[in-house]
C-alpha cells in the first residue's frame, strides 16, 4: 500500500511540476526561448498575489484572478521590448538576457520584500484531505493537479481551436512565412509570453499556498520545470504533464528507498529518458 501511496503522491507532485513548467513549455515551444528567469517570475507572481491579499484583504484565489491581467501585460511588455530582440538561431543572447533578468528580479524582490520567507494566508483547505481507503490525499495537491490538467486542456483548446492558436503554431513553424500571411510575429510572441505569465500566476498561487517562498527560491524549481518540458518533447503540452509526472514519481520512489536519492532520482529519470529518446517522449514530427 505504501508503494501505491508513494506513486500517487509522486503523480500529484508531478502536477505541481507540470504547472511550473506549462508556461515555460509554451514559450520554449513557440520561440525556442530558454527562459532562465521563469522560476523568478513565478516567485514574483507569488509576491504580487501576497501584496493584493494584504492590501485588499482578498482571498488568495481572488487575488490571483486580479493578478492575471497584470502579469499578462507584464509578460507582453517583457517579450515585446526585451526578449524579442534576443531571438534567433543563437541560444546565447536569450540565455544571458534571461539570466540577467533572473538575478535582477531576485534582488529587486529582496530589496522590496526582504529575505523573510512568506506564505499566502492559509485556511482549513490547506491541510484538508480526502480519504481513499487507507490512502489520504491532500485536497490542495489534488487541486494543484487538477489545475495543471485544466491549464493544459485550456492551452490545447486555445492552440487547436482558435485563430490565435493557428497563428501561434504557424509562427512557431516559420516566423518569416507567417509574417507574409499578415501575422506580426513580434506580437504573437508577446501574446504567448503574456499567456505564459498568466499560467505563471496560477503556478505562483499554488507555490505560495503550498509552502514558504522567498526571493531566492525560484531557480531551484526552474530545473525541474525544464526537465518536464524537455522529456515531454518540444511543444507538446501533454508531454509536459507526463514529463512532470515522471519526475515527480521518480522523486517519491527514490525518496522511498532513501531520501538521499530523492532529487537525484528525478534527474536520473530525466537523463534516462533523454538517453533513449533524445528529442523527448512526444517530439514534433518535424523540426
Amino acid at each position, binding site marked *: 500500500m505504501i508503494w501505491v501511496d508513494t506513486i500517487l503522491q509522486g503523480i500529484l507532485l508531478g502536477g505541481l511540476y507540470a504547472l511550473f513548467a506549462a508556461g515555460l513549455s509554451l514559450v520554449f515551444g513557440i520561440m525556442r526561448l530558454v527562459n532562465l528567469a521563469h522560476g523568478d517570475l513565478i516567485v514574483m507572481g507569488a509576491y504580487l498575489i501576497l501584496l493584493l491579499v494584504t492590501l485588499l484583504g482578498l482571498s488568495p484565489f481572488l487575488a490571483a484572478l486580479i493578478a492575471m491581467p497584470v502579469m499578462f501585460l507584464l509578460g507582453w511588455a517583457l517579450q515585446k521590448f526585451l526578449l524579442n530582440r534576443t531571438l534567433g538561431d543563437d541560444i546565447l543572447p536569450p540565455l544571458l538576457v534571461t539570466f540577467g533578468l533572473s538575478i535582477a528580479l531576485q534582488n529587486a524582490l529582496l530589496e522590496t520584500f526582504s529575505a523573510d520567507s512568506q506564505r499566502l494566508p492559509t485556511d482549513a483547505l490547506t491541510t484538508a484531505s480526502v480519504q481513499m481507503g487507507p490512502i489520504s490525499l491532500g485536497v490542495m495537491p489534488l487541486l494543484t493537479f487538477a489545475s495543471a490538467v485544466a491549464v493544459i486542456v485550456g492551452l490545447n483548446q486555445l492552440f487547436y481551436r482558435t*485563430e490565435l492558436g493557428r497563428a501561434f*503554431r*504557424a509562427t*512557431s*513553424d516559420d516566423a*518569416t512565412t507567417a*509574417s*507574409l*500571411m499578415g*501575422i506580426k510575429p513580434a506580437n504573437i510572441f508577446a501574446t504567448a509570453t503574456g499567456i505564459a505569465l498568466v499560467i505563471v500566476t496560477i503556478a505562483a498561487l499554488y507555490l505560495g499556498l503550498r509552502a514558504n517562498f522567498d526571493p531566492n527560491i525560484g531557480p531551484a524549481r526552474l530545473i525541474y520545470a525544464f526537465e518536464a518540458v524537455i522529456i515531454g518533447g518540444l511543444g507538446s503540452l501533454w508531454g509536459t504533464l507526463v514529463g512532470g509526472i515522471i519526475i515527480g514519481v521518480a522523486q517519491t520512489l527514490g525518496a522511498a528507498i532513501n531520501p538521499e536519492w530523492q532529487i537525484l532520482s528525478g534527474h536520473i529519470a530525466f537523463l534516462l529518458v533523454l538517453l533513449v529518446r533524445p528529442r523527448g517522449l512526444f517530439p514534433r514530427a518535424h523540426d
Partner: protein
Amino acid sequence: MSLLSTQNLVAHYGDFQALFGVDIEFGEAETIAIIGANGAGKTTLMRSIAGVLSNHANAVRFDGAEIGALPADEIMAQGVAMVPEGRKLFPSLSVEENLLIGTYGRKKSGQWTLDTVYELFPILRERRHTPGTALSGGQQQMVAIGRALMSNPRVLLCDEISLGLAPVVIKDIYKAVPAIKAAGASIIVVEQDIAQALAVADRVYCMMEGRVTLSGTPGSLSREAIHNAYFGAHQ
C-alpha cells in the same frame, strides 16, 4: 499609372550584396514575369517587395504609397500577398488551417473564400484535414497559392510555383492564373522556365547577377536577346 514599382532597390545578406539597384514597375491587372538563372536575385527581389527584407521607404511604391520600409505583415495588409519559393506550408497546420491562416486578423471579405479556393483546386477539399506537408508537391503548391489568395490581394507574387513539379502538374497550376487575374489581382511570376513565363506574362523582366538586364513584351524579345540577358554575352 503604375500600381507597384521599385526604384533603385538594393539588398544584402550580411556582407554579400544580392541586388544592385533594380527598377521594375507594373500596372493594374497586369501579369509580369521575372526570369533569370539560378541565383540571379529573383527570390531576393520578391522578398524585398513583400517586406521580408527591409529597405528604404521610397525603394518600393505601391498604389502611390512608399512601402519599402514597412514590415511584411503591414505590406500584406495593404494587399500584396506572396507565394513563397519552396511553398513553405506550416507543417503543424492542416490544409484547411493553412488556407485559413491567409485570412488572419482580416475581416474584409472578397472574392476568395475557402469555398472559392476549393472550387479552384477541388482536390484540396478532399484532403483538407490532412497536414499540409503530407500532400504531393503539386498539391502543396496549390495550398500555398490558395493561402495567398485567401487574403484577397491586389498583387500576388508567385516565386517559382512550378519548381519541382511535373509538367502536367505545372499546367494545372498555371491554369489557375487566368481565374486569379479575372478576380482582379495583378500577378508577378518568377520563373526559370522561360517558355512557361513567356506564355503567361504581359511583360517580362530578365535578371542576372542582381540586375535587370532586359525587359519587354514576350513578342518583342528574341531568343538571342533573352539568351544574352540570361547568361551574359561578349560586349
